[in-house]
């Protein structure tokens, strides 16, 4: 009897904790969606907490215009997918080099790769900025692409580590067999290594895309306002909102909470859609990547 009561108590505790934590995690998102549909009357009405009296899509419609949504969305996808592709490819090569071969200076080099994770971009961004200025790369996506090609993109050490762990799991006998059969190193890499590391490619590409998407600190520095991604547009939301309202001649409309939440929702909704389709790879990829230290 007592044991049963204990188990019930235990279950209540565990599930209670998970449910409370889960709610805390999604609360801001739910609130954001609900607020986005509110009119300015609903916002001040103390009776309206979650469900607005009249569902108004006006906020979303206006936010689409404020941010030039569809064009900006296209830009954002381009600016995050291309560097992510390049970064993934380079990191896969580098990770392979570390995992497959033993060479002089390997340990020091690998330690340096990991150390770059700790170096904040503030240390390197000023000379990089000047460098891109001299090369006329400012204001173009090339300021992202160039470092990505050379394995110095955002958090590239994580991706090198992921690939390293995947390639470490390669069966050596398979490679040796291929070499005996006269396969070149490139053959081995493309025909044996890459297929084995497929989940690594996927997780790296996805994470990299998402991180490039969300980056605004370096983005606003290197793009100089010439390329506007969705998060950068969100930064200037209130300002552009007021401008738009003035040009449309709609008086009395302000960038209230509802309008801002609608804008925020529009910025993250593409990521939510991406996550809805790929969450399994994200979650399992991290598990499989073996960063968990073997």
């Amino acid at each position, binding site marked *: 009897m007592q044991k049963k009561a204990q188990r019930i108590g235990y279950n209540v505790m*565990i*599930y209670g*904790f*998970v449910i409370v*934590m*889960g709610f*805390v*995690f999604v*609360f*801001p998102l739910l609130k*954001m969606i609900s607020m986005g549909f509110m009119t300015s009357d609903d916002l001040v009405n103390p009776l309206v907490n979650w469900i607005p009296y009249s569902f108004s899509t006006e906020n979303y419609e206006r936010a689409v215009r404020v941010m030039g949504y569809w064009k900006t969305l296209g830009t954002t996808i381009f600016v995050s997918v291309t560097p992510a592709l390049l970064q993934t490819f*380079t990191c896969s090569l*580098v990770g392979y*080099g*570390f995992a*497959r*071969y*033993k*060479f002089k200076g390997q340990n020091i*080099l690998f330690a340096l790769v990991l150390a770059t994770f*700790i*170096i*904040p971009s*503030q*240390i*390197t961004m*000023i*000379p*990089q*900025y*000047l460098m891109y200025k001299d090369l006329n790369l400012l204001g173009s996506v090339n300021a992202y692409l160039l*470092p990505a090609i*050379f*394995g*110095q993109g955002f958090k590239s050490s994580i991706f*090198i580590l992921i690939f390293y762990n995947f390639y470490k799991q390669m069966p050596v006998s398979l490679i040796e067999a291929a070499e005996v059969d006269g396969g070149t*190193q490139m053959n081995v890499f493309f025909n044996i290594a890459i297929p084995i590391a497929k989940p690594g490619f996927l997780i790296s590409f996805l994470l990299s895309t998402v991180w490039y*998407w*969300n980056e*605004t*600190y370096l983005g606003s*520095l290197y793009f100089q306002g010439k390329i506007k991604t969705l998060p*950068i547009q969100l*930064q200037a*939301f209130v300002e552009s909102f007021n401008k738009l309202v003035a040009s449309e001649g709609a008086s009395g409309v302000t960038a209230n*909470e509802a309008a*801002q939440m609608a*804008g*925020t929702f529009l*910025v993250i909704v593409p*990521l*939510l859609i991406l996550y809805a389709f790929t*969450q399994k790879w*994200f*979650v399992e990829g*991290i*598990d499989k990547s073996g*960063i*968990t*230290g073997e």
Partner: protein
Amino acid sequence: MDKKKLTKSARDSIRGWMFVSVWVIGFLIFTIYPIFRTIKMSFDSVIISANGLITEFVGFLNYQNAFLSDVTFTKALIQYIGQIVLEVPIAVVFSLLIAMVLSKDIKGKGLMRTVFFLPVIIISGPVMEKFTDMGLMAIQGTQDSSLIDSIIMMLPETLGTLLSTLIDSFVMILWFCGVQILLLLSALQKMDKPMYEAAHIDGASAWESFWLITLPNLRTMIVICIVYTIVTISTFDTNPVISMIQENMFSITSGMGYASAQAWVYFFTLLLVIGFFMLIYGPKKANLYGNSKAVKQQMKEYEKVIRDQKREQRKLKRTAGKEE
């Protein structure tokens, strides 16, 4: 065929370097060179003019200014240290709690994993700013509490601001945990189940086996999570110190030299913070539970119990096989 003359290790060396050479070149151009240039610039006064950069050596003046004249910078730096020292333990403890609960056989585990990782996908500076502005990142029910307000008023200014940021951005701390939860979860799932069973047979409570088995075994992973959390929070866009550095880059009065000095001060602070955490909970340090002799003895006994159990099982199997 010259190739054949090379030994296998020499060949491997060349091939290895070929694969990593891209990174090495990039590292020299985009990291090493900028690092040295930032060092040099931090001792210069650098001003952008129509004719390019005008640099002038000023010695330690930039550093002096950062600590002695620029009140906002030192204040932001202290705020940042306080924030990290407070937030990192919270983030790691919550990550561990969530990971441990998810490692149990509970229903809806997959869904919850998805939920806890979700913030990693959407977290960005402007989005967080909007959420914090709307009070959505605060601990609910505390926003207008007069009790908390009066506590904040009573504390010294730095501590007060610290507490109010903590309350206002508590959910944000949790949102930084997505990766850590998954890392800890997969480390937990790779842990030795028989060890727990043996401990259980010996009468260890769940509480004891947490301290004696789980925590020592997770140590490396927790250290990784601590570093990851520190770096994530430090490089996040809403960090006031880093936005200050960017602002100063283009300021006419301070310029890039001053910004470089600030960047270095900031980097050293970051290293100090990491060092501080490693002192308290670093890898391989003799720890109260993990390395004490009594525990090692206990572990050996557990291992023996496990061996005995396995032997017993094999015996049973053999006899069962004979009977068939």
